């Protein structure tokens, strides 16, 4: 079982992004996913900056993968995708546009591609997918069924830690709750380093708003399921970046690394985010 750090889903300041990845160089993870998945307006880092981070992580022995935008609408977004794909990099495809462009080269099928059965998985495998990230809403039995049908050589990665990406919209919710719209957003999503928590009218944390993305308020934490996932045939666990105001992320990585080495008592530090932790590969925050 290996560990990865998923793409940074939030809009952090440039210096914080560099510091985050610099710390990862010595962290016990095999793979790091880079790039912007949520909003193409976020450009604190240029492609050259990402390339520089990639070089440092590669030099530190990490596998580096570039994640592509999940919701692709504009021509400029397709052009940016072409530039990423034409570089000498492995991509995580989060839209069929990326699969179409990656054409036959090895790639990772991202969590937003809707892979729910063996036929779809084999189709993507034939097109070059070497690893796939299970959709977040797949429950354990469905994941087990799918693992039984996967083609040879196809690795399975599971989202194991972080606020869960649940939905994407054309609308920017971070802007909306501040009475703005997307064209006039002033990058207000940057104020929410781990997303903006939305509560029910009974003050129960429900969602987190992150630009055009809606997430769970709860942080999924599968550390207690590591041996179960390992036994089921999952080869990689994804830890989704959070800021140090939410959790000491280096300690999260260390806890998962211990769990992967077989230490059943390994525990993550508490999350300071209002939703707390939820467990189980199923989305069962309330059960």
């Amino acid at each position, binding site marked *: 079982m290996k560990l990865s750090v998923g793409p940074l889903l939030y809009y952090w300041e440039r210096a914080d992004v560099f510091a985050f990845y610099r710390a990862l160089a010595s962290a016990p993870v095999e793979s790091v996913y880079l790039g912007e998945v949520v909003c193409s307006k976020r450009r604190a880092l240029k492609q050259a900056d990402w390339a520089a981070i990639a070089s440092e992580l590669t030099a530190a022995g990490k596998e580096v993968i570039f994640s592509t935008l999940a919701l692709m609408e504009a021509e400029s977004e397709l052009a940016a995708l072409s530039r990423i794909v034409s570089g000498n990099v492995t991509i995580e495809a989060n839209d069929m*546009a990326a699969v179409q462009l990656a054409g036959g080269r090895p790639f990772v099928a991202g969590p937003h591609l809707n892979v729910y059965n063996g036929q*779809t998985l084999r189709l993507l495998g034939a097109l070059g997918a070497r690893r796939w990230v299970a959709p977040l809403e797949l429950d354990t039995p469905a994941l087990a069924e799918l693992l039984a049908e996967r083609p040879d050589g196809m690795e399975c990665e599971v989202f194991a830690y972080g606020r869960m990406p649940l939905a994407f919209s054309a609308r920017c919710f971070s802007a909306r709750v501040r009475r703005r719209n997307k064209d006039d957003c002033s990058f207000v999503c940057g104020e929410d380093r781990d997303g903006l928590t939305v509560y029910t009218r009974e003050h129960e944390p429900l969602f987190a708003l992150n630009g055009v993305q809606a997430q769970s308020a709860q942080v999924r934490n599968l550390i207690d399921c590591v041996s179960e996932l390992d036994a089921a045939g999952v080869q990689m666990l994804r830890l989704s970046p959070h800021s140090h105001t939410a959790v000491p992320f280096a300690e999260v990585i260390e806890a998962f690394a211990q769990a992967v080495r077989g230490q059943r008592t390994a525990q993550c530090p508490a999350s300071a985010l209002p939703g707390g932790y939820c467990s189980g590969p199923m989305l069962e925050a309330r059960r």
Partner: protein
Amino acid sequence: MAERGAIELVCPAGSLPALHAAVDNGADAVYLGFRDGLNARNFPGLNFSADDARAGIEYAHRRGARVFIALNVYPRPSRWAAAIAAVDAAAGVGADALILADAGLLGYAAERHPEVALHLSVQGSASNWRALQFYRERFGIRRAVLPRVLSVAQVQRVIERSGVQIEVFGFGSLCIMVEGRCALSAHVTGESPNTHGVCSPAHAVRWQERPSGRQARLNGVLIDEFAPGEAAGYPTLCKGRFEALGSVMHALEEPTSLNVLDILPQLLAAGVSAIKVEGRQRSPAYVAQVTRALRAALDACLRDPAGYRPPASHAAALERLTEGRSHTLGAYSRPWQ
């Protein structure tokens, strides 16, 4: 001048009477699903048996209308056999097209039933021409239904470059998330459009009367509370009132319906092939009224796009059928985004 038939009015049917209502009131095509939990309106008491579908197709064809069958959930391995049986059944009853989302199922249908036209469902989440190129080259799709995330200008770009017919939503309940990529309902109820063909399912809804008002809960989660006398809407997750930044608000979207009556000429000019009406869960009477209104508006627009004004009586009829008596252009209009 564009002719009738240059743009199709595609209307929903959850039952044979609804199909009759759509055809009788001017639908060019009707879409429906089987009673097997494999389509995106998996509601109790709704949908068609194979015999009903056959009867409906015969009724429609005799009156010059087409019938599409939607099989647009993403089947997990244990449901695969049922899913391909449904594809075979849809081809067997003579559907004019299958509306599919899952790439594996599209592959199966393209190989096994090459004579049947394939439409990419809105649940397929294809929001750009590159993604559509993928589905066209792999499976030969003829048409795609676009997610409700694009502005009119973006719809036009997709049409110019995708090489397939484009169908867009024109009226009905509004999904504000990219269809096929929304797990809000899964998060709260364990069931979602992708896996179960339902969003905020009725069996998870509880209404509770409290002194402060009427509470609408979904699997126990408070989605909204309505003051005495306030109109109470169905607790769809993305239309709930929540607390954000210390204020109670419709953080994602207010209860509202999509209505493109005002921008029909722009959609026509953009080159859309079909306008789709949401609502297979609606009554035959609703289907009849919406179909009649949109038929009249489309005919007026096709006759004289430059001089088009939404027909007042039909616009009023549609307004009465909207959620929360309010309508929006959704993402077609940039400021909405």
